[in-house]
């Protein structure tokens, strides 16, 4: 404080304005070099303000990105939930079509009948025993399902027409290869077998 220059107040009252001589020299407080260099520079202030705004801006962007990510996560999670639900629903339908009642009824619709005894093929004579034709002792061709399954109401059975339609669509390829391929193997009327008697 002591090194500050100061103007001592005039000991005399100031003369009236018209009396002030025009050529009176201008007196100004002059700062020292040290004082000038110690004074805060405006560039610092500008830098501070800009960086402050930059930080605010970055924070805002970051929070937008984060919340956007959160919404994305939420959307994906709900999508995942939907897909899991769909998967469970499809599994449930598959299990139902995998049920024995459905398979048995579908097999019956395709013309299959349950056998009541194991069938044996005699290799020496080619005979089948017991004679086929005595199968399906229940006599209803497997269609008379007596084991209830209330879930199967309204589930369509496998359609034999649809089943035969599928090979038809691939038939051209099959016939083409048969025509150009090797000759069909000769039909063996009797299986070669050692005489066991």
């Amino acid at each position, binding site marked *: 404080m002591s090194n500050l220059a100061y103007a001592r107040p005039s000991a005399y009252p100031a003369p009236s304005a018209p009396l002030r001589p025009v050529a009176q020299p201008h007196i100004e407080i002059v700062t020292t070099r040290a004082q000038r260099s110690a004074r805060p520079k405006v560039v610092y202030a500008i830098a501070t303000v800009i960086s402050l705004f930059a930080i605010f801006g970055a924070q805002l962007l970051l929070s937008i990105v984060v919340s956007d990510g959160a919404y994305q996560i939420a959307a994906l999670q709900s999508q995942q939930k939907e897909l899991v639900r769909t998967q*469970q629903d499809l599994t*449930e339908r598959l*299990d139902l079509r995998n049920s024995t009642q459905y398979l*048995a009824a579908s097999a019956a619709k395709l013309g299959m009948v349950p056998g*009541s005894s*194991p069938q044996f093929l005699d290799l020496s004579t080619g005979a089948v*025993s017991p004679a086929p034709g005595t199968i399906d002792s229940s006599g209803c061709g497997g269609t008379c399902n007596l*084991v209830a399954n*209330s879930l199967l109401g309204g589930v369509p059975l496998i359609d034999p027409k649809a089943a035969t339609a599928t090979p038809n669509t691939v038939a051209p390829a099959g016939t083409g290869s048969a025509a150009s391929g090797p000759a069909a193997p000769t039909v063996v009327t009797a299986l070669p077998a050692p005489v066991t008697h």
Partner: protein
Amino acid sequence: MTPRTARLRMSLAVLVIFALVAVFIVRLVDIQLVNAAEINADSYNKRAQSLTTYGVRGSIVDTNGAILAASVERYDITASPRSALARPDTNGSVSDALAKIAVITKQDPAQLMAALTANPTSDFTYLTKGVILDVFQKVRALNIPWVYFELRPARTYPNGATAGNLVGFTGTDGAQAGVELTADKCLASTNGSATYEKGEDGTRLPGSLVTTQLPKDGGTVKLTIDRDLQWYVQQRIAQTYQSLGATWATAVVIRVKDGHLMAVADYPSVDPNNVNGVPNTALGSLAFSQPYEPGSTMKALTAASLIDAGALTPVSQVTAPSLLYLSDGSYIKDAFSHGDIRYTLAGALVDSSNIAVSLFSKPVSADLRRSYMIKFGLNSKTEVNFNGEAEGDVHPVSQWDERTNVAVQFGQGMTATSVQMASIYQTLGNGGVRMPVTLVEGCTHPDGSVTDLPPTTGTRAVSASAASQTLQMLEQIVTQGYLSDKLTIPGYRVAAKTGTAQVADGKGGYGDAAVISVAGVAPAENPQYAVVVTAGIPSSMYSSGAIASTFHDVMAQVLTTYRVPPSTTPAVSIPLRW
């Protein structure tokens, strides 16, 4: 204004300011430190919405992993009548919306309207319960603001009544019957809880979900049952029931080497998807819960016991009179009238002579004979401990009168369940070693650990030689008996015993009703499976021959299903008379 008053005013102002600041500081400390937790929780509760997260109840699968019972998600459709009816329905938007819902849920729109208007100020009413995903998604797509949805965990049984008697079912109060009930500890899940924060308009703030308690899924119960075989046996038993006009029918298939039940069929039996479809008596498994006087199928146990006790061989001799009189003048008779017949033990079994079996049994003490029955698993529940399982009765010897003393040896005056009978034939097939009857293979928890493993230690009931001699005699029934053509399975040696038992009428005598059964094992020289088929019929118009073809078909199906190699040696012939 004097300097004095100015100073006074100054200090007063400072004092007031300090006092105010002090009040604020106290309040600040109170809010920020003293009551901080409480206020935080309070504010969180205003934003937070609690949520129940459901654990999934475990599945019940058959021995090959086919699903018998599974948990599925169903949806309840609810509505807020208050917001729906907030404005008068002048332009018909509410009835319009209800009509659209009704088309999807196949309900009556008037019924939905009635549900909605029943309590117009309420914020909650059910429109429909337990709809499938398809319906839920369609109703949700309508975007009706006052319609809400709730998750409802449910149970489905894709195979319907196949093994429904064993699997059981669940109701609104949880497990009700069968394995669902007995294995509930393994199957049950624990619900978890979570909270999320909601915005002012009720939307869920993303990323605010906090799980407070993780839900725990239930374990998977694996049965010993083979689903496809079970279906066949149930189908065959149902046909038998209908053709005989029976009151009940059961069949049990048990694996000889380890006592695993491959199929347990009852008719009538429940479809767990539609519990109301059958009478209350058919909700469980009669094969476990219904003891009956088994009749002549018990003679196999008698023969094995007497041979094991050293009293007899298959060719031991006895002369059976036409009637066997007791000391009180009453008599024991056979199913057919005859003069004196000189039976071997094998012959007594083939002709199923009660008189011959009584004469063979008498020399062996009642205590010893009863102890064999206990060793074969009678008079106590099997290891399965099925829901509602019966013990059957073999009364203490002190309660046996002169008739009971011999009648128990041909299956009257005592009772057993179908599963107990199957266990007897399992024992005979397994060289006299009775294996614990098993229905549940174990419980697999979500973490992969397996618990509730069944006991595997067998107990010897009779010697291996007694068991195999008994089976040789039972084979004579298939090769030489009058039901030979019905019981023979080409390619396999079968040992079987028929039974036609009278049913006590509850008044100390026997009525018209009868229980007919066939029990046996195959292949006789190396038994793999034992089968018992039984039917309760209202009158004695049929003999066991009526159910022999059922036994044949079930046994043939078992042998084919499990690809049992055919027998390579012929049956040994044993003389039936002397």
